[in-house]
């Protein structure tokens, strides 16, 4: 070792390290990349952050399909900015995953080989332009509910990435809602298009929060470690409570006959979620799983020459 001032005493034993880690979590302080951490904490975080990053990246596709078809220059510019943000979110998150020893290119390979998952919501198609608005309103709205508590995640780099993401999500949701309001002021056909999009996206958006807590294998441990701050069911309930009044202002009907305000709790009761569908989509059998993965694979393989050319150029000029 060249710098004697940096010498450390003999490494403390595992139990002492674990105690130090537990104390940091108990004090609600942040774990930073170079801290000792239990292997399960590291692995669980890589899994969660990678899954989150993949969702941002794959999430560009359904909306990206409308970039060329957006009805005006204004709408094109907005959609382009939104899709670019989602790419940025993916990058922030891969960057956080790398602080845990993951490798970015390797994570992409795992996504393409279907060894890692992404949010089931992006396996549904965007059939009309109203879907762009509904995704902003409902899908980004649900993402906000999920992500705001993650700004206080116990892992520093993840929490910091989420703060950055959350600052940008509000634009996503508002542009979507404004788009829908504009269509609702239009023709009967446009209003029908919005209602149709709401009918198709409402239930999948509820599934974004994941299975019920008693069927969510990783949730309890994630909460104990402060990686997650709230259970899936609580977050889902918050989302419903926020969204129902927004639907009323917009003038659309949420496709759930059981949706009703519980006067005792002040919260909305809603009907049963079709978890069979959720599991099917997650297992790869949704309407667009194959298409999404094929496109991501093509992006990696078809653009590999750019990576190689830039590397060759850099080496030549080094």
């Amino acid at each position: 070792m060249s710098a004697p001032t940096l010498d450390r005493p003999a490494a403390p034993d595992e139990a002492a390290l674990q105690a130090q880690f537990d104390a940091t979590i108990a004090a609600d302080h942040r774990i930073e990349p170079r801290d000792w951490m239990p292997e399960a904490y590291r692995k669980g975080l890589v899994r969660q952050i990678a899954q989150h990053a993949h969702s941002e990246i794959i999430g560009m596709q359904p909306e990206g399909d409308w970039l060329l078809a957006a009805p005006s220059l204004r709408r094109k510019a907005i959609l382009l900015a939104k899709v670019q943000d989602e790419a940025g979110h993916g990058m922030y998150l891969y960057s956080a995953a790398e602080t845990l020893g993951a490798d970015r290119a390797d994570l992409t390979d795992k996504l393409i080989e279907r060894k890692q998952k992404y949010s089931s919501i992006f396996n549904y198609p965007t059939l009309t332009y109203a879907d762009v608005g509904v995704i902003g309103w409902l899908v980004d709205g649900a993402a906000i509910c999920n992500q705001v508590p993650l700004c206080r995640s116990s892992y520093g780099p993840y929490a910091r990435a989420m703060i950055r993401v959350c600052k940008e999500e509000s634009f996503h949701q508002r542009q979507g809602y404004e788009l829908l309001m504009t269509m609702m002021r239009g023709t009967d056909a446009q209003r029908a298009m919005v209602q149709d999009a709401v009918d198709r996206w409402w239930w999948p958006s509820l599934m974004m929060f994941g299975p019920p807590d008693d069927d969510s294998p990783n949730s309890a441990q994630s909460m104990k470690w402060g990686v997650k701050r709230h259970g899936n069911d609580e977050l889902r309930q918050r989302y419903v409570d926020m969204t129902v009044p927004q639907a009323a202002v917009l003038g659309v009907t949420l496709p759930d006959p059981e949706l009703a305000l519980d006067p005792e709790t002040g919260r909305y009761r809603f009907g049963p979620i079709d978890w069979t569908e959720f599991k099917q989509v997650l297992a790869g059998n949704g309407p667009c799983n194959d298409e999404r993965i094929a496109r991501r694979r093509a992006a990696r393989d078809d653009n590999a020459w750019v990576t190689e050319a830039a590397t060759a150029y850099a080496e030549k000029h080094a």
Partner: protein
Amino acid sequence: MSMTSEGGHGAVPTGPEVPVEPKASTARRDWPLYEVFVRGKRGLNHVHVGSLHAPDDEMAVHAARDLYTRRNEGVSIWVVRAADITASSPDEKDPMFAPSGDKVYRHPTFYEIPDDVPHM
């Protein structure tokens, strides 16, 4: 012991006991990792905002602009290869900083001054 930056492999493999997936030697077909620092506005320090991969320094600055300053978040960007950063130690609870812990006399609150002494 290698002591490098927060991002990427540099931060984590503090020894053979820390696992890296996949093994660092087999992973590098990606561009090198850069750490990014942004000055939010005039009068503020550059602050670490994250990392990215780029083939060279110049491309790293361009990528940093696109990735970290899409909404006027900065007026100046620094990028530095993660591998070129030397950090205090692989542990954030660094014994190097322990000696300052018992030097309370370096803080103004250590000194008791009567309340009626003005401007102090």
